């Protein structure tokens, strides 16, 4: 019995048991699955992705860049719906971050009304399921929108109807490409300029005006060129033709409902993270910075926020991941993203449950890994530099 009390032996034996158990279970499950799938005649065979789908038309919702029509092969539906997921995730992350930071800072305001407002916001949105927010926002804001025939244009440019929110679209004329090149150049120049400014500051301690110069480079310069060329842009406004509006950019109500709910909901979590991050910075840091004579906004920008970011980034990453995964709830309002289209309609009509669920999961896993990777890179840049 010496062997049984040998630590090494026990470790190996235990792991072997675990492994054998796992493999055994796996074999059993696979066998069952194969038997059942054979009985149901849904064994994976052939390349179902190139078979034609027969669902509603699918469009890349906001920009009409890509349209998949009913008889197109299934892989196009997969790509289109995946793009829709990514699209709404990026927009949601942007709005949630902006709003979350604002609410988080408001939560720390000395103004009683402001911080109570932020508190109530956070508690309200955190304590109700996201699915209900999506449905509720859709029901309160978007369902009552009138039909296109009855919808009244706002400023002759925007139309809010139950078919969608229409906004004017800029149609580039000749010469507009010059403006976009100048814009790109401006961005590059701004990056170079901030690099130079950092070098100068590291060397001499002089601070160069980075913000205003960059604003001029990125916004001012292209605007100047734009007006110098005589404004080579024509606005196409939506017009009522028949029973619907045509022209302009169309934003579907379900897209807007989902985006609003995702942003508001996630913002409440981000606000708490931001608040915790700012509070985690030692009070002495603020006092020392003030003692050095920095103005309050400089104290915030140069001392508090860089240190708070170290605490904020990891949980913020997981909120971004949550938002991306939560975009799958679009299925209840009918926004055409991957779960609704690929795992919903296409699964129902093709019956390829194993492949489709597997591919959808793989898609989300790779998105998760990608976001984690990007945020880790960013985290490394703000992490404490130990020398």
């Amino acid at each position: 019995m010496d062997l049984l009390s040998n630590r090494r032996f026990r470790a190996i034996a235990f792991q072997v048991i675990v492994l054998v158990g796992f493999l055994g279970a796996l074999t059993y499950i696979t066998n069952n699955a194969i038997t059942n799938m054979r009985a149901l005649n849904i064994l994976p065979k052939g390349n179902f992705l190139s078979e034609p789908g027969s669902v509603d038309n699918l469009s890349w919702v906001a920009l009409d860049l890509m349209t998949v029509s009913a008889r197109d092969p299934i892989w196009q539906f997969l790509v289109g719906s995946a793009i829709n997921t990514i699209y709404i995730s990026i927009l949601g992350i942007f709005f949630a971050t902006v709003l979350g930071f604002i609410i988080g800072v408001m939560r720390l305001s000395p103004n009683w009304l402001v911080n109570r407002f932020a508190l109530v916001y956070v508690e309200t949105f955190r304590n109700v399921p996201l699915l209900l927010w999506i449905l509720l926002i859709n029901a309160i804001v978007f369902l009552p929108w009138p039909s296109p025939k009855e919808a009244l244009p706002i400023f002759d440019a925007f139309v809010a109807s139950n078919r969608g929110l229409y906004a004017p679209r800029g149609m580039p004329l000749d010469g507009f490409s010059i403006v976009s090149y100048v814009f790109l150049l401006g961005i590059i120049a701004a990056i170079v300029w901030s690099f130079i400014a950092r070098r100068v500051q590291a060397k001499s301690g002089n601070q160069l005006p980075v913000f205003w110069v960059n604003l001029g480079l990125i916004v001012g310069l292209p605007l100047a060129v734009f007006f110098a060329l005589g404004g080579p842009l024509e606005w196409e406004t939506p017009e009522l033709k028949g029973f619907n509006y045509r022209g302009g950019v169309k934003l579907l109500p379900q897209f807007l409902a989902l985006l609003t709910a995702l942003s508001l909901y996630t913002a409440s979590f981000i606000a708490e993270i931001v608040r915790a991050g700012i509070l985690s910075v030692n009070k002495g840091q603020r006092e020392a910075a003030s003692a050095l004579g920095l103005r309050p906004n400089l104290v915030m920008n140069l001392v508090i926020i860089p240190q708070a970011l170290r605490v904020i980034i990891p949980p913020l990453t997981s909120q971004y991941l949550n938002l991306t995964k939560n975009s799958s709830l679009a299925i209840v309002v009918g926004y055409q993203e991957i779960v609704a289209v690929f795992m919903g309609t296409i699964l129902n009509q093709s019956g390829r449950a194993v492949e489709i669920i597997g591919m959808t999961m793989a898609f989300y896993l790779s998105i998760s890994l990608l976001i984690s990777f990007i945020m880790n890179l960013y985290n490394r840049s703000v992490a404490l530099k130990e020398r």
Partner: protein
Amino acid sequence: MADQDKTGANFVPTPPRDAPVNTVGMGAMIKKNLFAGPVSWVATPVLLFIIVSVLWHVFSWGLLRATNHGASNRTCHLAERTSLLSQHEITILMADKLLLSKSYQSQDQRQFWVDSQSTWGRFALGTLGFGPSYGELLTAEIMGNREVSRALSQRAEILATINKDIEFIERNPDPDATLHPGLANVVAGKDLLAGREALKAAVTAQDPVAFEAARSEFDDMVHWGEAHNGACWTVVKRRWQQFMYGFYPKEQVWRVATTALLLLLGGLSLLWPGRSSASRSLSAAVVGGLIGYTVSSGVGLASGGLLLALALSVGLALLYEQLDVGKRGLIFFLGFPLVAIWLLIRFSLPQAITLPSTWGQWVFGLIMMAIWALFFWQSWQRQTQSHSFKPITNLVYLAVGVLTFYVFLTVRVDVDGQQLSSFQELLGRLRLSDVEVDNVWGGLLATAVTGLTGIAVSLPLGVILALGRRSDLPIVSTFSTGFIEFVRGVPLITILFMASVLLPLFLPEGVTINKLFRALVGVSLFASAYMAEVIRGGLQGLSKGQTEGADSLGLSYWQTQRFIILPQALKISIPGIVNTFIGLYKDTTLLSIIGIFDLLGVGSRSVLPSLEWARLEAEVYAFIALFFFVSCFFMSRYSQHLERRLATGHEH
């Protein structure tokens, strides 16, 4: 010395002054808290405006203008439609009046206008029944007034709907539904056309007095309608049963209520262990009485009902006095799930125990008396040992003894010609029918079952996964890490789809499990991955010295975890654990997507698609949202309370 005394005597201290006016009092407080700087000067009024307007809208919609009358959405919408119709009528007739005062009066001129310009008018003329008159068309055309043309085009439609509403309400009168007085007026004098004709006649006759009189009646209608076009809580009132129990058979609902009360009893004993024994026993007595009442009224037990309630009440109170928290917890955790499954799905115990005759009753009665005697004896022993005589406790014991004797041994009830004891009668009535789970369980019942099962499974599983992830054994830690990262990387909805679509494929042929159970598997696995990460955080928060200390004491791995590591790790991860619970609880709403009638599923898949309650999305979702808000809010408050109480205070 004298000099000093003298100067001391001459010293007149300056009288204390009041604090500067602008640092004390209401004004200063407001200034400091609301108007401290230029940003505040802008932010405070803006926020105040937003808050007041949002609150006012919610309050006015949800309470002031809300109704809960009638038997369907038609009663609620009738007010809104009536007001809209009246508004349209007024618009149209005002325009008519205006038109009459102008010179376009001759029939030829009208005809000319209609023929030459108004293609839309000719189209509208073609619509039968409610087609607008020439004058009305002319009004719309000449004035180019969008509101008039809108009123014209919508009036017919609304009027038709209103007539349908009234017909529907008259056809389906709900016995206990009352119509709001104003609504009853509309339904009673249902011909809105009459008022309209009067108004029109007044316009044609150019009789200002009659016109004003007719108009003011319409005005009243508009105001009344506008005062009642808020939320329609009728839906919640009428479908309350479904929101709570789904499609659980109505006459069996007492079983759910009993289970809930048992849960409450367990909760009382576990979640507030710090209460004094008296208040604990009292609450146990109250809940016991409620359970007895629910059971007896549920099974239709007439005579024994009160006795059962009393017996359960006193019995539970005494049981609570006898057992400490640990034992109560053990009884609860082992007993509750079994009892709950029995009660909710099938209660087969009485079928197993059939008492044919009086001797069975005697055996039961004697066993009960023996148990009573044992408890009494124990209590007596304790009293003599501690030299503290408790008269009330003893009185209660005696009362229980008499009651037990009475209930089990003497009372006779006549059931189908047989003389039975009330206990036998109860057992006889407890032969319950089976209740299906799929498509029958629903509402809060399904939500609560999912939430509680998820919590009960995910905590132990999470601990195991967390320990596995931190394990030195490479295979164990790879498996744990792989599972955790996989589950955390995909949305819950895909896991639920997997559980509901793929799980049946993985089972041997012929084995089926119901939909709710499949969802439970998915939810529990999902929650345990998140739980594992929270607990891992707690484990990492402990210093290495704890493990090393335990090792040096010669404790085994499991002893170390059980006695040293986990108690500390779980304590510091309580906020995270409760957050995961809240998340899990909120995530139960996703069950509605895979076809289970949970609280949200009942709303979105049973209530809203029905004809009577269509288009009441805002009300239904707001009700469910409010429910979740209240429960989640209290859960998070409870976690903060627990955190404070468990803080042993060695941090600072």
